[in-house]
């Protein structure tokens, strides 16, 4: 067999393995990213959606953050303006987690309507850029 066709086989092999790694990676780790309103809509349409872990992007309701440092539990509410969910998170919150911060919580919606988060990412609008006030 000519070297170039052997190489082509090698190339196909690499492409297929990379493709396989990517496809399985997405299947195993892909998570829905929803807003509170979308989550509510999906759960209403299909109650089993609760059991699917999701990432939810929303804004922290000002004044809703309660920290219990001893048990390292944080409860707060997030909203997208249409739908508000109470969130329970156990662990250390990032510095950027404050009132009105944009957050991404990952976890699932419990039957009682609270969102139990396993990870909490916060992004502050003024991280690099000042809020366009003034």
């Amino acid at each position, binding site marked *: 067999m000519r070297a170039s066709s052997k190489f082509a086989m090698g190339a196909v092999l690499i492409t297929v393995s990379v493709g396989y790694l990517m496809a399985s*990676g997405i299947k195993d780790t892909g998570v829905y990213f929803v807003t509170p309103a979308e989550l509510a809509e999906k759960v209403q349409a299909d109650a089993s959606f609760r059991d699917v872990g999701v990432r939810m992007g929303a804004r922290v309701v000002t004044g809703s953050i309660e920290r219990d*440092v001893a048990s390292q539990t944080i409860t707060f509410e997030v909203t997208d303006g249409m739908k508000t969910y109470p969130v329970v998170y156990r662990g250390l919150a990032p510095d950027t987690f404050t009132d009105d911060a944009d957050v991404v919580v990952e976890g699932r919606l419990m039957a009682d309507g609270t969102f139990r988060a396993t990870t909490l990412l916060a992004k502050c609008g003024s991280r690099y850029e000042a809020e366009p006030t003034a």
Partner: protein
Amino acid sequence: MPNADHATKQSLRLEPVTILGQLALWLALLVAVWGSVVGIVGGVQGRAELIQSARRTAYALLGIISVASACLVVALLRHDFNVQYVWSYTSRNLPTPYVISAFYGGQSGSLLFWALILAIFAAAAQWLTPRRYDYLMPYVAAVTSMVTLFFVAVVLFASNPFERLPFTPPDGNGLNPQLQNPGMVIHPPMLYLGYVSITVPFAFAVAALITRRLDTGWLHAIRRWTIVSWVFLSIGITLGMWWAYVELGWGGYWAWDPVENASFLPWLTMTAFLHSVMIQEKRGMLKRWNMILIVMSFMLAIFGTFITRSGIISSVHSFAQSSVGYFFLVFLVVSAVALIWLLWTRFPYLKAESQLESMVSREASFLFNNLLLVGMSFSVLWGTMFPILSELVRGTQVTVGPPFFNQVNIPIGLALLALTGIGPLIAWRKASPSNLKRQFASPVVSALIVGAALYVLGLRDFYAGVAFTLGAFVVVTVGQEFVRGVGARHRLHGENYALAFARLVGRNRRRYGGYIVHLGVVVYFVGFAGAAFKKEMEASLKPGESVTMRSAFGYEYTFTHIGVSQYEQLNRFVSAASVDVSRGDERLGIMTSEKRQYWDSFQQPTFQPATEAAIRSDIREDIYIVFAGSVDGTEEAVYRFTLNPLVWWIWYGGVVLVIGAVVTMWPGGGPTRASLRRAMVGYQVKLVDETVTADAG
């Protein structure tokens, strides 16, 4: 001390600075248009005066954009808070180095900074390129002018740092505490230098395409430029990891965040380009592929800047959303169309001069290296864009996180590590069995011994084990090369070993510098593999209470909480929690992690509190302590303790890599005819040498 009463008057007095800056930007815009047009027209019509003029625009742009930049820096240093940008990112109590770094700390300033660096590189390319490449230079000037034009236009029309407020606030907003870090002062410039300098090799590639002079000439002209931009990208990425590690307080250095990925993508394609260029230089193969790689690298660098600025993908790093994103999108689409057309029409001129002769050859190993690198960048790009792609296809965003990137990239990375050892040692064209045996017997045996030893010592993590084993393989291959080279000089020229080593490296800089870079890569991999053994624990401790943790190396660490103290410092209020740390019976000392609340000159808090992790680093493992807060204002503190094995190696891998790259590029300045001839003769000798060895076997 300037105060609020004088602020209005002061801003009137300073008005000329921003007017001058604004004028300079408009002038830059016109000059860049001129350079773009004249470069192409002059080149096509061969009119010397136009060509001359186009080349001079590169210097003119450098002068003009320097003036605009200086104006912004002056406004920053004078605390002219009537300028919105100055108000947004600085305050009166901000230490001066950070005031200056605010130049690129915010969006509009950073875009101006992009233009400034581009102007520097464009002028340097005109200045340093030897005369024999004059036929490319008008087009190079045109391309760099067009890219400059784009950035100046964005600064002028979408994100202007000279914009003024209708009133003058007495003090500014201050710089985000997380950016108040020495690493953050140098990390963005390094990354920009990397991103921006890709423009130079890209401009040469486009020039070669336009002129249809597609021999290896343009490749020789950009040799050093390619390494320069690759090194800056590497430094920028590594400093970014270091900053994230030291400043963000989550105990890691890489989170596969879209912005991190954006810097990684052009690095991957540039790495592929660095390697595949060698095949074109020696064997006349892969011409099309190289063109595509350099064009892709440039597009990915612009794309990276686009991602960080458009807010199209939610990222913890991103700048606020603005119309800047549309400018970038238009620029990306327009350049993509132009480049595809250019490539398409020039494809027939890019025929390979020779063919792959054997799978067991250096060409083949480089080809696989390229495929893997491009496969990796494709997967990273795919993962980064997946939220958008899935929303387009399925109507719901699906995000993939670090597990996806790790799952895909760890196996590819390890395959690349293996090729790092194989590639440089395998013969060109076709390796003979004896060549293979001579080159690979001891590395393979050593690697197997290392792998077995690690297993016996209790290492059970598969990927980490493979990484260490392959690392040993690469180190031995490189060591063998040095030992053989030094030995040969010692025998042939009777030089002592030190001199033989110096001459060996000095006379084959590209080759041995490349080996040193490869060693640096191994050191990085050792550091990355360490992440498999990370240990983490959270605890709430009263003064005097302690916790113990066992590290992957089997050390028993004891952390005893001492207390929380509070004090004022510079422009911040600090709560510091201290821990007494021992390893086994040995007391290591006190480590203090801080929560800092920054304030403005009126003692009003600004931004959220920032965490300052306490880090104790050594060659084995880092102790990383984060003070998360005290319980109800008492001295009981909540901590996160992290034991991070081998992180130290990542930073020193960076050092080795830079040393290697400097060796390859030495001496500075442009390549001389003599050094090129020497290098070419050197390669021919080596080629002959290897052919002889291959034939003999």
